[in-house]
């Protein structure tokens, strides 16, 4: 029930009572109440000016102060309630009394509840002094950049990632489905499915053991590897770059299960080398002559639309090639194969889509193993400014990945997906 309804119902009761009992006091009281209500209604003409200044950026779960300049331009005073309706922030409601013509400077504490760009939806409610009527004023929607807090980063680091990138690749390709026929028991290798651990033999031998089953087919796998220097990054501790590690790891993994591998190395200009059936990871790396590269890889993702037609033509004329290395490599793949493309989706997303289309047409099943360069940045190189830039680039890359993922399977890898055993061997 509304306050005004309560008062008007009282006035109605009094009016009826006055007429029926022939008593003028209830009539006078009813008239007084109705007069008060009408004057309040006639005077209610809210004009409130609200300006909110929000810091450009904040940190996740850490309070930040928004400054509000409120001015009552109406002829009556009232109460102002300032609310924040965005579900992504917590903000305590502010309530102040404000006289006609008065200006007040307020501070609102906002606690962002998640990271990224979050929309802020402020609302101001002006209520008249007797509390009969109100008016809602919606503030302009603003965006706040929220960076991850140091605490959340520390906590995330504590939780060990259980992503087994190579096993994910195998699952995404769907190669050689396992039968129910038992083959052997073998030692557990990183990347193996933990559900396959045989606990009886593990407890007996004191070492993790895996049950191996026969596979239906042993298919050919093509590894399409971008060896362009833009895609390389030296890892300080091990003096090798992540491309070398990932390539070696892939070869080792698939060789162990008996798959036949064909390696095709390419760069922006074309195919660099084709390596049919390498013996092991180390020899494959040797044949490709992959040496660690220093320097910063481009972390800014290219747009999916790519360069304009004219600039593409000029570039191809300058390079004297009309098809990119990746597309050429895709054309070399035999029909109905399994293909792993090791590339950075941020370098040439358009080409990746083209290659994926070519492979799909040829009946091949392709997956992109995408080492995100943002994950591979060394901690020592980071300062506050770089961290923010890196975060922006990370968000751009995530956005691009979301766009591509409907058209091609992508598996994102970071340094934690590199197997220490492979690193040691190299």
């Amino acid at each position: 029930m509304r306050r005004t309804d309560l008062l008007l119902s009282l006035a109605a009761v009094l009016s009826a009572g006055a007429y029926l009992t022939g008593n003028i006091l209830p009539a006078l009281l009813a008239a007084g109440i109705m007069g008060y209500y009408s004057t309040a209604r006639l005077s209610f003409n809210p004009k409130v000016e609200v300006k909110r200044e929000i810091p450009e950026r904040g940190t996740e779960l850490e309070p930040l102060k928004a400054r509000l300049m409120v001015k009552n331009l109406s002829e009556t005073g009232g109460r102002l309630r300032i609310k924040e309706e965005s579900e992504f922030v917590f903000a305590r409601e502010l309530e102040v009394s404000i006289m006609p013509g008065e200006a007040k400077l307020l501070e609102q504490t906002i606690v962002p509840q998640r990271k990224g760009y979050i929309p802020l939806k402020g609302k101001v409610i002006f209520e008249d002094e007797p509390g009969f009527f109100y008016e809602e004023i919606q503030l302009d929607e603003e965006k706040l950049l929220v960076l991850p807090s140091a605490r959340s980063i520390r906590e995330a680091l504590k939780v060990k990632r259980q992503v087994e990138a190579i096993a994910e690749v195998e699952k995404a390709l769907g190669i050689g489905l396992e039968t129910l026929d038992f083959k052997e028991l073998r030692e557990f290798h990183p990347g193996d499915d933990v559900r396959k651990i045989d606990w009886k033999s593990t407890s007996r031998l004191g070492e993790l053991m895996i049950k191996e089953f026969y596979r239906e087919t042993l298919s050919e796998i093509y590894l399409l590897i971008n060896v362009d220097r833009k895609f390389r990054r030296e890892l300080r501790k091990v003096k090798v770059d992540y491309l070398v590690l990932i390539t070696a790891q892939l070869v080792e993994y698939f060789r162990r299960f008996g798959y036949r591998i064909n390696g095709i190395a390419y760069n922006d200009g074309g195919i660099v080398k084709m390596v049919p059936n390498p013996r092991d990871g180390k020899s494959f790396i040797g044949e490709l002559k992959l040496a660690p590269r220093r320097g910063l890889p481009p972390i800014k993702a290219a747009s999916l639309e790519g360069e304009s037609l004219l600039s593409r033509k000029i570039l191809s004329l300058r390079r004297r090639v009309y098809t990119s290395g990746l597309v050429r490599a895709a054309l070399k793949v035999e029909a109905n194969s399994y293909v792993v493309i090791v590339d950075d989706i941020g370098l040439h997303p358009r080409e990746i889509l083209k290659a994926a289309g070519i492979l799909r047409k040829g009946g091949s099943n392709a997956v992109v193993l995408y080492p995100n360069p943002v994950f591979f940045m060394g901690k020592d190189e980071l300062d506050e400014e770089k961290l923010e830039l890196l975060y922006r680039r990370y968000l751009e890359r995530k956005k691009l990945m979301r766009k591509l993922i409907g058209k091609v399977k992508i598996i994102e890898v970071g340094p934690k997906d590199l197997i220490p055993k492979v690193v040691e061997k190299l």
Partner: protein
Amino acid sequence: MIGLIASLLTAVITGNYILLLAPLIYAAALKSRDLALIAFYLYVLVMAFYFNPGSIYTLSGMEGVLMAFSTVIVLDEILSGVRFRIPSREEFLVLGALTVSAFTIYTFLPVLAAVTVYVIYRRFGKPVLYTMGWWLLLAASLYAARSRLMHRGAQALIIVGLALIFILIGERRDVKAVEVKLR
């Protein structure tokens, strides 16, 4: 505070001691505005039917007008929030004028009317002119029809009818109303 003192003085002048219950509404207002509004509802109902003044054209009828004025001031104060504080200089002057004029109904009535205008002006500003215009219209109508309004029921009908016209004028403005919440 003005409403409280006005009610107490009106209670003494009119002999309607129900008005002495006004402090209870102020106590309720300290807890919550909506609770005070409900207390006010009961207070007005009891006051209205406990006391039966004579015709509006008599001195006894003027006592009813006094009660209506003091009730409006009480309503304004409980809705705007009751706080324990030292009254301002202006309020001291108003309270002093009320107390000094409370010796006879002839002085108290115009002073209380002026105080009501002051309270409404302080709260709502210029729209107090509508209220004053409406009072004048009511007074003029009652005066003009004095020979035909011998029965008090008829007088009540005219008062309520003119108040409804004032409500219709107020309804011109489209507003959103606040809900009653008892917490």
